[in-house]
């Protein structure tokens, strides 16, 4: 069985590589390359897969999951400038793909258990653009 909990944060970012010219960054990332940044209301859906515990009837305690998402995502990223304030985005571009992989890395050790695993991290950069990370990033 899979269970999903949603978290939201608002944060600014830009996508550009320091080793590229302004023209190169514009060509690859378009408007997202603006070095002054822009923001989104990011939405994260975290899905765990496992068997419900025979005593509690739960795959994972949703109160605990809420707190983990709050600590690892909201406290770390909400109302922040990702490139300047949230590592590793000082080094890698905070694309939706990289945000999803970073969230996976942060959450996986905190939710894994003998009867359950992290199954998917979906990150909506906008309502019309989202990515699904369904395996551990390299």
């Amino acid at each position: 069985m899979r269970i999903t909990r949603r978290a939201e944060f608002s944060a600014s970012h830009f996508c550009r590589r320091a080793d590229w010219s302004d023209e190169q960054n514009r060509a690859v990332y378009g408007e997202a390359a603006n070095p002054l940044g822009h923001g989104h209301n990011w939405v994260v859906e975290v899905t765990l897969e496992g068997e419900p515990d025979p005593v509690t009837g739960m795959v994972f305690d949703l109160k605990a999951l809420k707190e983990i998402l709050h600590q690892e995502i909201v406290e770390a990223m909400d109302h922040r400038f990702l490139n300047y304030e949230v590592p590793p985005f000082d080094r890698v571009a905070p694309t939706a793909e990289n945000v999803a992989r970073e969230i996976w890395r942060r959450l996986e050790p905190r939710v894994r258990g003998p009867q359950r695993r992290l199954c998917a991290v979906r990150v909506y950069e906008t309502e019309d653009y989202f990515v699904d990370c369904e395996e551990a990033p390299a």
Partner: protein
Amino acid sequence: MTVTRRYRFSASHRLHSPALSEEANRAVYGKCNNPLGHGHDYVLEVSVCGPVDEVTGRVVDPARLDRLVRERVLAALDHRNLNAETTEFAAAPPTSENLLRLVWRRLQDGWSEAFPPDRRLRRVRLRETRRNIFEIMEEEQE
């Protein structure tokens, strides 16, 4: 990793099969068989899967996906009468199932020009109304 982009188009249609009698069409399609047609604000989700390019941090260039969808799909469907203006629907009824197949075929036709082989069209999802949603996956195309 899978990247999904959502698009919108508005189009009119009438569900009517030339293989059925007038009476059978009314029985099968109900209100959707209204001779003058009706329309929807369709929502289309296109999903691409592949590895994250470690240089750009992205699976695909969304602008390139937008261009493909716009040129191959939206230009032909948005603000159109599907029965009258889409060759595929001269004979087949423009149900969302058939529309989904059309979208898949048209995207697939332009795919290899737009993307390298390890970026694959993974899923197309079409919302005809808030209550009617249709989906087709890569593995159904074999």
